[in-house]
């Protein structure tokens, strides 16, 4: 106890807290406030490409010109054109469907890992983490090799006699789903494994002793007990998938863009920074509840462990 007090009273404690705190305020919080501010500006041919700019040096009058210049024009643009609403819907659809697929594929894998012999488990965890460490871009690119018209998948399917003409897998929703499920699988498996591994096997024995068939014991004992893992895995996948850019851009078609692509296009191609900012603000509003739930789960899981 003495040691703890000595630690927390010293200059070290203050430094340990303030260095990361100030860094995150400067590089995470303040940037968001700037995004909100610029989403209220108008695009202009200027440097930087928006008006009004806040001129703090001009003092009170600078602030007045700034306030007079801001407005909700960017948000009106988002409402007036369908492509934005369609992009948001498409993103939510892709995120929802792929999270569901990930859960269905990931659960048996995590369950199998949790039941593997102890010594093997550490190796299996390592094997699932390893692809996560290799580049995201490379993993998506690997699928272009496989899915392109003269690619491996079509050749294997043709050799097996399943297809007679090459199928265009790329530039389709199927390709997006394959890419997303492939890239996010470790994020689903690991939290599921973490809860399943801690589960008390005797509960299943008890259920069996009481005459519950295996599927019923699984449904009424295992699944409810693994809910924290399901929640963490689902959120860890759903939130970033909603804003995904690389996967739909490389594997997807050009009919309906996901919102990450729309934001990218507004920013890099159209140079409309205010509209890009407004897209980011609305996306964040859509995700604020899932993010808050995720933070809560994360905090509880870490604190519960100590």
């Amino acid at each position, binding site marked *: 106890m003495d040691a703890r007090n000595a630690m927390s009273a010293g200059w070290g404690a203050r430094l340990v807290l303030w260095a990361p705190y100030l860094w995150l305020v400067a590089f995470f919080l303040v940037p968001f406030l700037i995004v909100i501010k610029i989403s209220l500006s108008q695009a202009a041919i200027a440097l930087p490409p928006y008006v009004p700019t806040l001129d703090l040096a001009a003092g009170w009058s600078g602030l007045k010109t700034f306030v007079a210049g801001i407005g909700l024009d960017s948000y009106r643009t988002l409402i007036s054109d369908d492509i934005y609403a369609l992009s948001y819907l498409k993103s939510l659809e892709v995120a929802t469907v792929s999270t569901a697929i990930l859960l269905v594929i990931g659960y048996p894998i995590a369950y199998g890992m949790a039941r593997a012999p102890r010594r093997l488990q550490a190796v299996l965890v390592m094997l699932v983490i390893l692809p996560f460490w290799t580049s995201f871009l490379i993993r998506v690119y690997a699928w272009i090799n496989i899915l*392109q018209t003269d690619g491996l998948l079509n050749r294997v399917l043709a050799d097996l006699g399943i297809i007679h003409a090459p199928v265009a897998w790329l530039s389709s929703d199927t390709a997006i789903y394959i890419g997303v499920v492939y890239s996010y699988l470790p994020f689903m498996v690991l939290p599921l494994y973490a809860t399943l591994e801690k589960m008390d*096997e005797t509960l299943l024995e008890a259920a069996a002793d009481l005459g519950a068939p295996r599927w019923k014991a699984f449904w009424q004992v295992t699944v409810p007990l693994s809910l924290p893992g399901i929640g963490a895995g689902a959120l*860890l996948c759903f939130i*970033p998938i909603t*804003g995904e*850019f690389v996967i739909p851009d490389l594997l997807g078609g050009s009919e309906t863009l996901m919102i990450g692509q729309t934001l990218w296009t507004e920013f890099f191609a159209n140079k409309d920074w205010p509209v890009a900012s407004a897209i980011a603000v609305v996306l964040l509003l859509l995700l604020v509840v899932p993010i808050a739930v995720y933070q809560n789960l994360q905090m509880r899981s870490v604190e519960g462990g100590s």
Partner: protein
Amino acid sequence: MQRRFSAFNVVSVALGLAFLYLPIAILVIYSFNASRLVMVWGGWSTRWYLALLDDQDMRDAAVASFAIATASAAAATVLGTCAAFALTRLGRFRGRASFAAMIYAPLVMPEVITGLSLLLMFVAADVDRGFVTVTAAHTTLTMCFVTVVVQSRLAAFDRSLEEAAMDLGCPPARTFLTVTLPLIAPAVIAGFLLAFSLSLDDLVIASFTTGPGATTLPMRIYSEVRLGVKPEINAICTILVAVVAVAIFAAAIVSRRAREGETAGLPAK
């Protein structure tokens, strides 16, 4: 405890791992394909690796990426470890909830949002964009991953060793350096490597925050990939996979040694 590793369990784990590894294996194999047509096998060859050596742009991008990854991972390790200490050791200080929220949010925040917001901040602050801005951006993202890794180690940490050192008159700073740091070193190293590989990997945030002269390897690969599959790209991707794999095995060995040393030198809990 009775655990049954049934046939169904074995098959689902095996299929899962096959799904995770096959595409990468195919990529590696085709990087040694002599034929320029990527999917036509023309025998084994290392010509695409040799072609890479002549690609000045690719080499510059690789140097920039490694420099940014090293600098940002170093900064992220220091800041992230500090944050992990603040979260596990300082109790329920005021502002803890908002601090924890800022640590956990970047883990799931869509990269387009983080990238855009950082860029707009750099523009508003009138900073020249390039090496420094990408490094700062990557530090912000990766420090949060370091925090999570180190925090889980600290949560399982035996405080009595530190207390013993201090009871024997060791000042806090020295206790930290001689007792605490060696014990959490595996997590800190793992955090550094994770930060390094995340930075090496990032396309979206780097694209937003970069400036002239700081084109990173993923940006370079991305612009080539958009034009279609090329054998040179298979080769560069294979090299990156190899670099990461070597780093991870090194880290696994280091942490195993550390754990063995720890259990050899100390009484079991």
